[in-house]
């Protein structure tokens, strides 16, 4: 898969850096250097000081599970993985203030617990999105890595 094909078409200009970074196998988030704070989702201005000088800062990708749900009902035939699938809401110790929605793979449902350590996987997966491919990002347990 070429870098350009990772992720959907961006609906807002400020959304695009996430996918450009992801194509290079990096997780990056909007960051205001003067506040030393991250924010998510991307905004036009830092929500804390209202500056337009927003950087994108790379993080390690080490994540913790804030919550999860296993989805058994398919709501939209045109988006999302086949059911059942795991939706995870993740926090990042090196990007406080951000939570990321993703999918969990290679995990036994019985092992799921709030706070468990996870790592990203940048392997593209087939699946419907607005752009026809699944974003090349999912997470799996850090244990045994």
């Amino acid at each position, binding site marked *: 898969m070429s870098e350009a094909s990772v992720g959907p078409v961006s609906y*807002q200009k400020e959304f695009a850096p996430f996918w450009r970074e992801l194509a290079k196998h990096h997780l990056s988030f909007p960051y205001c250097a003067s506040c030393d704070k991250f924010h998510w989702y991307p905004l036009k201005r830092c929500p804390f000081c209202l500056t337009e000088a927003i950087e994108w800062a790379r993080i390690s990708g080490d994540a913790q599970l804030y919550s999860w749900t296993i989805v058994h*009902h398919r709501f939209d035939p045109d988006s*999302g993985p086949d059911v059942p699938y795991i939706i995870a809401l993740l926090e990042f110790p090196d990007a406080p203030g951000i939570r990321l929605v993703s*999918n969990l793979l290679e995990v036994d449902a019985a092992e799921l617990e709030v706070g468990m350590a996870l790592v990203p996987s940048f392997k593209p997966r087939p699946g419907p999105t607005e752009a026809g491919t699944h974003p090349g990002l999912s997470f799996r347990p850090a244990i045994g890595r």
Partner: protein
Amino acid sequence: MTDPASIAIVGIGETPPARRSDKDVRTLTIDAVLAALDDAGLRPCDVDGIVTDTVVMPTSVPRDYVAGQLGISLRYDAAVSYGGASIVAAPMLAAQAIASGRASTVLVYFGIDWGTRASGPYGFHDIYPAKLEYEKPYGFNAQPIYFGLWARRYMHEYGLTPRQLGSLCVTQREHALLKGGGQIPKPLSLDDYANAPMISEPLRVPDCCLISDGAGAYVMTSLERAKDLARPPVQVIGTGFASVPTTGDAVFTQGSDLMTIPGADRAAAQALGEAGITHRDVDFLETYDCFSISCLLQIEDMGFCPKGEVGAFVEEGHTRIGGTLPVNTHGGLLSYSYRLGIEHVTEAVRQLRGEAGGNQVAAAEVGVVSGLSIPDYGVLALAKH
């Protein structure tokens, strides 16, 4: 109670609960408006103000259509929030308009066709670009999934059990059966609940609201004028509205602890304070039960129960008709119909008129109605006059 600023709900109307109606949303809405006017003993030409929501009605049943169809000459026109919070917060604007003389009779209506529309409520969230880009591709694409995530976190934090979630669903189904005419006429036991198909863990089918076609409406005027009308007036004794600074994109995942309904605490404090009442004075609560979990959170966040204790509160039967705080006395969005809460307002009025029927709360004098359209929250305190 003779404050000249006081207003009352003097007429209510709603179409029968239905998953799919053979009438379109404009027909349903006009039917509900005419039923509300008829209930009040008023004619369309008596209406001179309309309050709608800002998002759903303007694109499906705009107020010019209603006014043009019915022959209403407006001198007051306003809108607040969208969907659930709007329906409940509309009297805040109506009270100001009537008190200032800018309107004498204000109509609120809400109709929905999400029962027949292909993407139903799920497509509504496509108005949020970050959701489309960062959530939908992973399959985070429907309200039961958002609230499944919330419910799991709350369970982790406070030890809420599946049985407690089920207790809320079972209680509300009992209420719907007592009332009759709801969308699901079938009883629900805790065993039925435990065996119901999973939608998005831990939420099962009964944890999720119905999907409906239908409409409702209510009419307000000054309390003074209300005394001469057809029905016993139900006084608006307090209104509250509050929102938090977060975008619609971020509201289900960022910022808060995902265990608090934004604005519910402040809107409730505003409405109860304006009414000069405490939680103990409230005889029943109609609150926005889009999901079992969101209903539970609102009971806590409005201050009717300490944080973390609502699971036990429901399991002990406090929210049943006959309990200390009957909640969603018609079965709510879970078991009666899902018209984003216009049915909560009409139900509260029936209760306070003493004409609810089999689900009547004994000696109901004060009722609270609340609605969410996250991150907005509306609260309405009503009293028998």
